[in-house]
């Protein structure tokens, strides 16, 4: 490791890290917001469930680099537009979470739903105040997988020239220089672990009734 180089490159690395966080976290939030109603729909309708899960599986099959290249055709963006990455990762996140949200709602005990109904909760209130909160642990488990894989997937965008931590890899390859590559890998893994930890904390905060043991 050449620490002197790292010191000189500090500002640039912070800039790349910032882009990486933005490109990984935005799709996570967008994906969750889209997956919640879709997952609820799949949970409600036995006919929609296999359809949505099937389409999600197919979308997941498309390799990331191919998706990054194909999206400009659909979105009308330029190949170098970071929007392509956000859109692609949002698609992956939705594909992963639709099924997770449906399964989370399925996992809510029938007694709990009946109790909510008996206490006078209407359909919408029961969903927001009872069923979704009870399903939080399942959803957050899926969200953790999406968060960690997003961080890794973002780095592929470096091959197209979109700046983020993956740029350190291509830079290191061109210069035949280990320092940026190792720094990039470490930052990616640390970023993934931090996001993962934040979701675990959020899960605990949202479900104060569960025992304080984290099953990973």
């Amino acid at each position, binding site marked *: 490791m050449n620490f002197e180089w790292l010191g000189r490159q500090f500002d640039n690395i912070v800039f790349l890290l910032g882009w990486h966080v933005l490109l990984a976290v935005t799709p996570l939030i967008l994906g969750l917001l889209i997956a919640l109603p879709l997952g609820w729909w799949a949970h409600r309708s036995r006919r929609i469930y296999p359809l949505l899960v099937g389409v999600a599986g197919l979308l997941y099959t*498309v390799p990331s680099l191919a998706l990054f*290249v*194909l999206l400009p055709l659909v979105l009308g963006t330029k190949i170098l537009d970071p929007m392509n990455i956000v859109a692609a990762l949002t698609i*992956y996140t939705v594909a992963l979470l639709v099924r997770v949200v449906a399964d989370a709602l399925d996992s809510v005990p029938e007694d709990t739903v009946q109790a909510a109904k008996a206490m006078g909760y209407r359909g919408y209130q029961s969903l927001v105040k009872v069923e979704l909160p009870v399903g939080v642990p399942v959803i957050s488990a899926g969200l953790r997988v999406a968060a*960690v*894989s997003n961080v890794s*997937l973002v780095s592929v965008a470096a*091959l197209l020239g979109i700046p983020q931590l993956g740029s350190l*890899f291509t830079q290191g390859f061109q210069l035949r220089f280990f320092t940026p590559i190792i720094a990039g890998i470490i930052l*990616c893994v640390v970023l993934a672990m931090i996001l993962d930890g934040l979701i675990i904390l959020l899960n605990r905060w949202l479900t104060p009734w569960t025992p304080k043991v984290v099953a990973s």
Partner: protein
Amino acid sequence: MINYLFDPAHWSGADGIPNLIGEHLLYSLIALAIAAVIAVPLGIYIGVTGKGVFMIAGLANALRALPSVGLLILLVLLISPAFPSKMGYILPSLIVLVLLAVPPILTNTYAGVRAVDAAAVDAARGMGFRTMKILTDVQLPCSLPLVLSGVRSALLQIISTATIAAYISLGGLGRLLIDGKAQNDYSQMVAGAVLVALLALFFDQLLAFITRRVVSPGLTRRTIKSAVAAEPVKTPVTV
């Protein structure tokens, strides 16, 4: 893109599309075979004996966070000086592909063997089956759906990552994407992207078909809903 795909000049020669697909498949299948040879016996061993379970959870999570582009480039810089020929690029690519493919096969094989109904194993033992025969005649056929779904995830991961390996001058369909980018030829990139996506979709469906054919019907007699639910969540393609 359409013009690129239908130009006969792109369908022959060393850089022709059939050749690129062939190369892509060759690397992918070699990597899959090596990964399966490592991961299936290890998964069975861990599943049957219960030894080394801690390794499984850690491995699955740690490797998901590892950026494959970085790993690939790191290994090329480490290994290629030792091999002056083309091997200096092929070897690191194969190592990365195998590394990415082992965890899904390993974790699914382990989970599959663990999930076999203990009553079925006891029944087989009661009928006088020996440990080895229980393994080959009861535990393995029962865990086959999960093992194959692990192989399916692994193959997707490999096909996807082999595309990226073109960046460090591996052959295959990734060439169209990387060379297209270098030459500012967007239609070539799109043609490559479409072909890679189709290749992945085709092999995913092929493995789904094989799974339906080889899994014992006794294991798949479920209601429609639970049949969908029984298909394990795909592990994300982290490339």
